[in-house]
């Protein structure tokens, strides 16, 4: 009897987790207020910032969707002028991961021309989600 109850709970939990993950993956949070944005520098990233925006991806070895995310970001960067992508190994930058509150890989940050983090998403994003986030970042630029 207990087993059946536990099974039922497990099945419900599975469906809930699957739906939450589907909703969350690639969903870019609304931009933080300008005075509350973290800022990343070219020094921290190891490459120069993009002229208009930079897409920063945090990856790890145990991450199945990281490769697909890399492809999406590279595709977007190739299509939009002034945008570059950076791939950061989360395990080699744990302090940065903690400072930025990154909990999952892949996590994608969108930086404006000055390096301020305007929005972020975790999980595999769709191309149109990244393009929309970039649009907002570039549109908000002073």
């Amino acid at each position, binding site marked *: *009897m*207990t*087993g*059946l109850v*536990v*099974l039922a*709970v*497990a*099945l419900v*939990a*599975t469906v809930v*987790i*699957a739906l939450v*993950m*589907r909703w969350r993956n690639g969903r870019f949070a609304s931009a933080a207020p300008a005075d509350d944005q973290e800022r990343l520098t070219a020094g921290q990233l190891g490459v120069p910032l993009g002229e208009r925006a930079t897409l920063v991806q945090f990856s*790890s*070895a*145990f*991450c*199945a969707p990281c*490769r697909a995310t890399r492809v999406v970001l590279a595709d977007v960067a190739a299509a939009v002028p002034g945008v570059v992508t950076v791939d950061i190994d*989360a*395990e*080699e*930058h*744990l*302090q940065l*991961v*903690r400072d930025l509150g*990154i*909990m*999952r*890989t892949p996590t994608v940050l969108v930086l404006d021309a000055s390096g301020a983090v305007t929005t972020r998403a975790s999980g595999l994003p769709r191309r149109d989600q990244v393009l929309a986030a970039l649009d907002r970042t570039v549109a908000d630029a002073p």
Partner: protein
Amino acid sequence: MSQPTQVDPRGLRVVAGITAAVLAAVLVIPSEPVRIVLLAAQVAVFAVAALVGLQASPYAKVYAAVVRPRIGPPAELEDARPPRFAQIVGLAFTTVALVALLAGATTVALIATAFALVAALLNAAVGLCLGCEMYLVLRRIAPSGA
């Protein structure tokens, strides 16, 4: 024998599906000896996949022998490290379940089994690797040596 670093993602889903069926059986069959045998078998399967390699898992062999010949070669391969890490997480949960069951703590055993079942079902149904999702969270907690 070198460790294969690329695996057929469809095989992983099938392996997860068989795992989920075995774990569901553990929950549903209210017989101590049957539960012990099923859990011990699952612990052994996880251990082989985690320690030897994903393709060495008996479930993966079932996939390679029965399913793969019917559906042809995969369109793309996947990195073996995330799913292998997930097998280690599965091994941890089923080991806890087995030990609890042998110690007479049936409820603890069933709950640990349920955690492994949720992870296996998510993997089989939507390809989500719950163990991998937990990985960075665990690394963050660990004192920074890197």
